[in-house]
């Protein structure tokens, strides 16, 4: 009984406290760089697509709203042939970003993406890919991976020794 009265009193007192909300859109709230909004695909420091089409984001996504297809380019890199996010399903949870081993997929502080037609909420790779590295400036997956891509032969990745010559006698 006392607690009920106390709650009533406490709530009543809020009549005289300051509002915490702001008058968006006249006044824009501050969004931290790690705010989880519209998703982008980034590029590595050399300007190549970061996404290697590993499908980890797709499998991590709770509403299953990411879909992509792996293809392999002539330069040996894996790339998504298409990369699609159905933002009408996305819950901006950021699990895709967590799952991504290459920092390719990142959430940005932008949530203003309303549409009158739900179909327009389907973003393809062309809509997602940006021209920079996003939040992580230095990382390039293929500099670390063992897979050969053009411009990086076997043994040239970070921390790799020159390839073994199996036919030599000094093994």
């Amino acid at each position, binding site marked *: 009984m006392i607690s009920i009265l106390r709650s009533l009193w406490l709530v009543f007192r809020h009549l005289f406290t300051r509002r915490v909300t702001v008058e968006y859109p006249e006044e824009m709230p501050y969004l931290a760089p790690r705010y989880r909004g519209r998703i982008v695909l980034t590029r590595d420091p050399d300007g190549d697509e970061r996404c290697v089409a590993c*499908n980890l984001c797709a499998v991590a996504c709770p509403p299953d709203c990411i879909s992509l297809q792996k293809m392999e380019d002539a330069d040996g890199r894996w790339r998504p042939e298409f990369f699609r996010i159905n933002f009408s*399903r996305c819950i901006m949870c950021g699990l895709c970003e967590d799952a991504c*081993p290459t920092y390719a997929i990142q959430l940005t502080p932008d949530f203003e993406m309303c549409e009158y037609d739900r179909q327009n909420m*389907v973003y393809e790779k062309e809509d997602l890919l940006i021209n920079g590295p996003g939040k992580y400036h230095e990382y390039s997956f293929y500099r670390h*991976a*063992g897979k*050969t891509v053009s411009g990086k032969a076997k*043994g040239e990745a970070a921390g790799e*020794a020159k390839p*073994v010559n199996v036919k030599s006698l000094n093994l």
Partner: protein
Amino acid sequence: MLKAGNAQAMATITIDNRQYEVDDGQNLLSACLSLKKNLPYFCWHPALGSVGACRQCAVVLFKDADDQRGTLVMSCMTPVKDGAIYSIDAPTAQDFRAGIIENLMTNHPHDCPVCEEGGECHLQDMTLMSGHTQRRFQGRKRTHNNQYLGPFINHEMNRCITCYRCVRFYRDHAGGTDLQALGRNHQVYFGRQEDGLLDNGFSGNLVEVCPTGVFTDKTYSRHYVRKWDLQTAPSVCEHCAVGCNTAPGARRDGKGDPRQLRRVTNLFHRQINGYFLCDRGRFGYEYANSAARIYTPQAALTQPLIQTTAGSAKVHQSLSPADAVARLAVTIAQMRSGNRRVIGIGSSRSSLENNFALQTLVGREHFYAGLDERSLALLKLVDRIQRDPRVHSPGTPEIERADMVIVLGEDIADTAPRIALAVRQAARSAQIARAGELKIPAWQDDSVRQLTGIRTPLLVASAERTDLDDIASCRVRAAPEQMVALADVLAQALTAESGEIHAPDIAGLDTGEFTALVEQLKQARHPVIVSGCGLQSQELLQAAARLAFAVAGHKEANHRQTDSREARAALYLACPEANSLGLAQLCDARQNLNQLHRERQSEHTPQPTTLLVMEADLYRQLPASVADQLCAGVDEIIQLEIVHNRTSARADLILPAAATPEYEGTLVNSGGLAQRHYAVYEGSGWIQASWRWLADAAAASGELAGAELSGDEETHARLQSLARWRHVTQLSVALAESYPELAPLAELGPDWDQTIEGQKTARQPHRYSGRTAIQAERQVAEYKPLPDDDAPMAFSMEGIQFACQSPLQANNWAPGWNSNQAIHCYQPKPGAARLGHSSGQPLARKAVVFHSDSAAGDAARPTADPSDGFRILPLYRMFGSGELSNYAGAIASVTEEPFAVFHPQDLELLSLTAGQQIAITESGDRWQLLAKVSDTIPRHCIGVSTGFTQMASIPGAYIEREQIAPGDA
């Protein structure tokens, strides 16, 4: 199976303070896995045994209950001992295993995201299971260069953990020679001497055997998706008659590409394929994605102008499925009213249900097998032999345990590859038996292989070199007649009490060898005889049967086997197509294409005639001139087909038929086992199972015919039942009622509404991704998954995901086990039949004693002088002789061009040279082939590549010298 009688000895062991009863005689690792314990391992494989190479499976063994420290042992090398105490969780064991995996990973590349193995990687699973999650090693990684291994297998050597499984499978199990462990120390390299195609026909299994991403499926990589994104269902391989079980994986494309089938992997079936598939079965799936695939109904344009420019091949145009059904319905309505004759041509590569629907549509008397006279006669003969109570068709485990194998004429390495792999294991059965005497368990692979020089007697009689030659204790290269003679003499030797038996006159078989052979055959307790339709010789089949009967008689007389199955002789007869034996049940020997051709030539019916061809290429079975006549003699050709071929080019109406992984049906393998395959995916475009097209058209024709219901009662009744069928299982039941041999079809698998606890089985695994995005490009709202009218399975994630107790389970997964090694979670113990069993029932054929009849002989040699004519010996290739697999891109890229193999002297005689194009002509038909030379082919024989796309049918059994001439360059 042979052990079924003996009760398995049991041992009581203690693992981590709990007591378990396990089968004695196995190793501790296998015992732990049968107890569903998570114990990491790499080098052990249930089919390859233990070598103790990887040290990953360490556990602690205690001397007694007081022993607190214990000793580390490798569980895969430790036989379970009654009363022994082990610990998997002991800190020493855990630390040891974590250390091992950390060492393995020091050189491992940072590749998982771009590794085709990722998501089904045994190394990933074991790393996690051992608890190694943080890299501490800061030194440099050892690297290797990769090799080009052909269009099937990708090589990425950096990922190797030197478990030696690949070479143990490739060399020791499959008999390959070109893959080796090269180098030494920690730089061992698994590859070939130089770049090039892996030449063993089982190389594809490296993909599944290698626990890492060193060997991956190149064809899969081209349209790669992760394992968790594949929907799957149990299927049966359609590329030969062995009937291996497969788990095809499919996924819809997000850009509307109709090609959905992504790969084929092995689906464990203890009696047939066990853990391994051949490369035709694994890589042949691409036919379903080929450019020749038919996705929409097509009608030939009738405008005369276009027709004249196109010649006999017609120009086709797509039409809507409704129109297509209406067109077929008109034909059927005319048939109903007696104004048209419809002839149905069935298929030996399509399901029993499809054939039955066609038979129901046209009536039994108008149903013909899509096979020529010779092929159908051979099948009927195989069927009659298999009905004899003195023989039975052995399964793979039985062949592997055989103590003598006689291969008569059949090139099983190319026509029934999985059986050849079993025969290869049989070659070691003597060694294993000897090991058993020395108390070495069979799984102690290395120790057993130390017993060199002990080989199972294996007679390989063949027309040309075969892939089994290297393990044969006795090789005979001969014409079929000589093989017949050899088989008969052997049979005689077994039955005759005494008396002189003379070796037949075959070049290369001396008396000593022959006597040894007779002696071995007399000694053998479980001999297996293998033959088949390959050489297209009925006499050979009969001779094989006679030899088997003699073996059975001998067994009964000398070994007094009690088990009735034991007393029967094991006779494996290989058939050509996935449902050859099934089709043979539906028609008699006269219902063949040659007979149809003759009938069409002689009689002239007043009514117009339609040829309704279902999944058969007439030009594959008949010489082009005969097929042309057959086609020209009818007014209309309607074809139900998967891929465009020469028959569909002439068809007036083409209906897109479902490929094996796209529909549910029943196939009968060479051993007479009826197996059901399920739809893995829905099929693109307007594809549906052939029987559904027929049923739809029958229903539509009912409406058309409605008013003028003339025709006979029986036809109407037939068509009505056809029109009423909704579920494929209804056809199976109808088949079971119509054909006593097919009675088991009624109980083959669950009906479409037979759910498990009210739930369907999901085809998509629980991690299936992209559900709400994959089709969003076209329509952002999700589509409803199509219902499955044939099986209690859903084309979605809904339902039971891992129905491990049901035969519908095809996805190999268990918590912590993402790779295909998860299969042991579905087995009572590694290597044993799956829990829930595989579908499959033997046909209920009535036992009838077989009497060889000389009337059913082969074509007689036309000329008396052998030097004047040549015998045609059909030769087969794993890549090239399969009708459907030839459409698969990777297979087509390694297929030879059609060839003819001559003995050097014959080549000289004909003044031809090897490498030259030659042409063989026979009554107006012409075959152009590449001349090859081989000193192993018998004289006066020409080995002709058979079943190749460009040159499907082969000239008759004999040709004259004049028929061979140099061909066009």
